[in-house]
Structure formats: C-alpha cells, structure tokens
C-alpha cells in the first residue's frame, strides 16, 4: 500500500531527497496523481503556511518545503500528461513586480506558495508595465493579477496598473491583489481600487482564496 502520509511528511519537512522515491512508489502502487497532489502535498503546504504564520518556521524552511513539493510534482506531471489529463488547478494567477522596480524575492516566495497551494501561476517577472500585466492576464485567462512593489516610487505604477485592469474588458472578471513593502492596505485598496492586499506569501494565498471564494 502506498505510503501517502510519508509524502505529506516529506513535503512538510522539506525532504527533497526522499520525495522522488516516495512519489514514484505511490504512483507504482496505483495512487491517483491528483489525490497525491491535492490531499497530501497541498495539505502539507497548508500546514507549512500555518507554521510560518505562527513564526514556528522560517523562510528557508518554507522555501525548501515548496521546492520539495515541486520536485514531487515533476514526477507526477508526465504521468498526468500520459493519461491525457492535467493537474487540477484552483485558479490562475498572473504575477509580477510593477514598472520601475526590480525586486523579486518576496514576489518569488508568493509564486512558490501559490503553486504549492494548487494555483497555476504565470510569473511575468520584474519591471512590468501596466499593458504587459493586461496582455498576460488576457493571454492566460487569469482569475487574479498580483502586483508586487517594494519601492515607494512604484506607487504611481501600482495605481496605473490597477486602473488599467479596471478600465479594460477584464474588469469584473479579474481581481487584483497588491503586496510588497511599499504597499499598504489603505493605498492598494482604498486609493488604487485593488480588490485585495497581502502582507506576506502566506497571506497572499489566503487573500486570493478568499477573493475566489475557495474554502
């Protein structure tokens, strides 16, 4: 019998070396790929997120857990594809750092945590102008657009990007979430008209799930 609990534990503790063998063994035993992902890996990352929020674990531990999950997903994806099915996703997020800002650490953590929570994420990089956010959101059929801004000089670009999305035919279809050291809830939501604001990577997952009425 496949030891699915061991997969959950390996992700939760960030045992990258063990994950490939464990996932392969489970698949060989006939475990359902989407069950492994949704009921064990994503569950493990939920616990990791909660421990991070409670300050029981630190950024590197969260990162290695997420990377462990991705290493496991790399084993599962070809199987799913050979079955002609796809990884189930809970939503699609297009995310980038706003124009004029090149910071990526926080945004990349958000990407990692979203992917580990079952989202399809398109990371469109840094220094992204409003029109590119718009174009990529359309191209990928995004449910959510995520804006990251660390510098206060990013403020006008956050505003311009939110307004560009709200003024386009994506208005009402796509929700915008902002985060990063420069962005306060007051600025993002009250002044720019964003749908949500997140304080860190775990909060970003929570906020996006709430906006999409998941859980």
């Amino acid at each position, binding site marked *: 019998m496949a030891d699915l609990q061991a997969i959950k534990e390996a992700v939760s503790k960030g045992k990258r070396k063990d994950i490939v063998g464990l996932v392969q063994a489970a698949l060989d035993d006939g475990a359902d790929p989407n069950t492994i992902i949704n009921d064990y890996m994503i569950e493990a990352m939920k616990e990791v997120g909660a421990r991070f929020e409670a300050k029981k674990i630190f950024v590197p531990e969260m990162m290695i857990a997420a990377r462990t999950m991705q290493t496991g997903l790399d084993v599962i994806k070809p199987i799913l594809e050979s079955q002609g099915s796809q990884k189930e996703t809970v939503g699609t997020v297009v995310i980038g750092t706003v124009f004029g800002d090149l910071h990526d*650490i926080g945004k990349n953590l958000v990407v990692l945590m979203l992917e580990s929570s079952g989202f399809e994420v398109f990371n469109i990089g840094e220094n992204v102008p409003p029109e590119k956010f718009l174009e990529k959101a359309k191209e990928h059929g995004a449910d959510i657009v995520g804006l990251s801004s660390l510098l206060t000089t990013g403020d006008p670009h956050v505003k311009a990007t939110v307004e560009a999305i709200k003024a386009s035919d994506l208005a009402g279809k796509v929700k915008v979430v902002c985060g990063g050291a420069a962005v306060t809830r007051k600025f993002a939501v009250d002044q720019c008209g964003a749908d949500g604001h997140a304080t860190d990577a775990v909060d970003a997952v929570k906020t996006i799930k709430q906006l999409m009425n998941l859980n």
Partner: protein
Amino acid sequence: MQTVISSPSREVIIGHDQPVVMIGERINPTGRKKLAAALEKGDMSLVQKEAMNQVAAGAQVLDVNVGVSGADEKDLMLQALQAITEVVDVPLCIDSAKPEVLAVGLEAYKGKALVNSVNGEEAKLKEVLPLVAQYKAAVVALTMDDKGIPTDVATRLAIADKIVNEAAKLGIPLEDIVIDPLAMSVAADDSAGLAALEALAGIKKNLGVNQTIGASNVSYGLPDRRAINATFLAMAVMAGLTCPITDPTVWPVRRTLLISDLLTGKDEYAMNYITAYREQFPEED
C-alpha cells in the same frame, strides 16, 4: 581614499584608515508603521527623536528617507531636514527614490550631503548624477542596473566601474562615490552572503572607494536577525565596508563595529570601545 561630508558645523571623514562611520538608518518609514503614520500627518517630533537617539548611539551621519505612499515627499523632505537640523548637527544623507525629492533636499541642505542613491540604471544615472555634480555632494551608488540586482560578483564590479566612469564624465571625483554592493537575503539564496563579501573585497581592490551596505537585508526571513547582521558586519568591515547604513541603537550592531575597529587597529588604546561600553553599562555607585 577619503570621502568627506559635512554639516555647517561638523565634518565626517570616511576612509579605510578611519574608524567605521555608522549611517543611522532609522529615519525611514518603510516597515515602520508609527513613523509612517507620523509623517503622513506631517508630525516631525518622531523624526527628531529618532535623530537624537541615533546620534546619542554613535551615528555620525543620518539617512533621511520620508517616502510614504500618498504624501508630498518633497515637502516632507524639507520639513524633515529642517526638523533634524534643529536637534542634531551631524551631516545628513538625503535618501529618496525620486530625483525631484533629492533635488529639493540638496537645494535646502547646508553643507556637503551624501545622496542615496544612484545605480547603474540609465535613467538613474541621467537624473541623479547631474544633481550630485551640481551640488558637489557625495553619492551612494548601488550595483544594480536595468537588468536587476546581480547575484554574482563580476556583474557587481562591472556596474560599479560603469557608475564611476559616468560620474567622472560629470566631474564627480572617485572619492565622492560610496559603493553599495547590495547584500541580499541568505534565506532565499544561501550564496548571497559570500557574494556580497566578495563584491566588497573586489571593489576595494579595483577602485579603493568607500563602501556602505544595508546589512539587515542578509538576515531577512531568519531567526535572531541581529546576530546574523552583526556577524555579517564584522566580516564586511574586513572585506572593505567603511560606512554601513545601520541601526546604531541596536547595541550588538554598534558593539560589533566598535570591536571591528579595535581589532583592525583603528581604535587607539581601545578608547572608543571603552567609552561606548561605559555609556551602555553605566557603573552603579
């Protein structure tokens, strides 16, 4: 090589043969809710308090950043500079991501200021360096450019060279450039600490300029950040750091820098260390 900055009544010399100069980082609303709220209201009393506390804790220069979202940063900068000069006499480092804020700050400042900052981005070079030249200020130069923040050493060195060359074209002397080779979090990339240290050493060897670094970045996302910051600072001083932008009110940080001076022959008879120690732990009679 010596970088000299000044207020109307005080001159500060930064150099490899000098004790480390602490540039106090606390007048910056990023991540400081109380200060941000005070600035939004135009209340300068907290700025003044931070200024006095940092100077009392050994800061020889104060960084002044008043960027809060939704406020008039130019006006706030003028107010802050005025308020700070009322209570302390150290030279100031005018810090803003907006060139127009740097411009009004430099225009109002009496003395030779440090400007924070320029970097290798074309727009920044074009907008900030002429201001530095015009006001004969000194400038912090970050080793990043339009391609982002490099993770390797060679790119950092190349960007430092480029900025120095661009500055020279405008008549800004090498000694008025303070390079910041940018320390990144070791939580996200465990080679980030060594890369920053090697960049400090490489820039010292190639250009001989003074260098600063925002040390607190290295520890982002990790426990006991102060211990990491202090250890990094000690190593960075040995590699070529001469004027860290840091929080002087954190004794472990200040202590590390004082001891670094002591152990590198820049504290005669250990007097700076002993004096600071007595201030920190007053003897009870």
